C-alpha cells in the first residue's frame, strides 16, 4: 500500500500556482503510488469557482490513479460562501481536520480491501 500525501496550502494561490499544484500533485501520486491525498486548506480564506474546480480536478484525476482525495480544514465562512456561490464540490471528500481526514482515507482503503477480498471469494 502506498503512503498518503499531505499538502498544506499556506497562501491564497493565484491561478498559475493553483494549476501548478494540480499538475505537481497528480505527478506525485503517480510517482509515489500514494493511495490517499490530504489537502489542508485551513489557511485559505477564499475559494472561488476557479479554486473549487482545481480541487475537483485533483480529486477526479487522483481517482483515476486509484487514490482518494480529502480536503480538510475548510473555514466555515468559506463553506457557507461556496454553497451560496452554487459550487458543489462533487466527488471531493471533506473532513474537519487532518486527523479526521486520515481516518476517512483509512476507512476508504479498508473498504477497498474488503471488497477486493469479496471479489476473490467469488472467484473461488
Amino acid at each position: 500500500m502506498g503512503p498518503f500525501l499531505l499538502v498544506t496550502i499556506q497562501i491564497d494561490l493565484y491561478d498559475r500556482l493553483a494549476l501548478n499544484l494540480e499538475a505537481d500533485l497528480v505527478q506525485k501520486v503517480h510517482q509515489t503510488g500514494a493511495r490517499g491525498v490530504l489537502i489542508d486548506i485551513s489557511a485559505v480564506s477564499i475559494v472561488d469557482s476557479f479554486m473549487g474546480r482545481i480541487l475537483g480536478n485533483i480529486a477526479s484525476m487522483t481517482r483515476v490513479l486509484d487514490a482518494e482525495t480529502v480536503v480538510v480544514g475548510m473555514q466555515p465562512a468559506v463553506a457557507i460562501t461556496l454553497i451560496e456561490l452554487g459550487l458543489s464540490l462533487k466527488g471531493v471528500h471533506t473532513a474537519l481536520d487532518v486527523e479526521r481526514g486520515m481516518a476517512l482515507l483509512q476507512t476508504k482503503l479498508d473498504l477497498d480491501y474488503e471488497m477486493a477480498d469479496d471479489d476473490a471469494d467469488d472467484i473461488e
Partner: protein
Amino acid sequence: MLMTLSKDSMSITREQDLVPFRNRVKEAAVKIGMGIVNQTKLITAASELVRNMFRYAGGGEVLIEIVSKGRESGVRLTFADKGPGIANLDLAMQDGYSTGKSLGLGLPGAKRLVNEFDLKSTVGQGTTVMILKWKNG
C-alpha cells in the same frame, strides 16, 4: 441617500493582480467592521468578476468604494472593462451558461453573494458590473 466615504481604484491587467486586489477589498471591508462571513462572500464575488474581466476582456479597472446609507455602511465595487461585451445578458446570468467551457457560475453566483448587483454591457464597447455588500447585509 447613498454617500461615498472613500474611493480607490485599481487596474487589473494580469492574473497576478488578483491576490493584491482581493487584499484591497478586504482592507475596505475590515475598515467598516464587516464580519468574516460577509467579507468572504464579498471577496469571493469580487474574485469571480475580476477573473471574468481578464479572461473575457483582457483586463480593466475596478473602483473600490466605502459607501453609507443612513446607519448602514458597505463596500461597493465597480468592474469596468472595454472588452467585447455580452450579447445576451439573461443568458449570461443563467447558472451553467458559459462560453469559456467553464461552470458558468461566476455571474449568477456573484449576484447571490452580494446585496446589490448591476450588470451593464454593450457589445463592442465593454461591460460594467457593480456589486454592493452591506456590512450587515
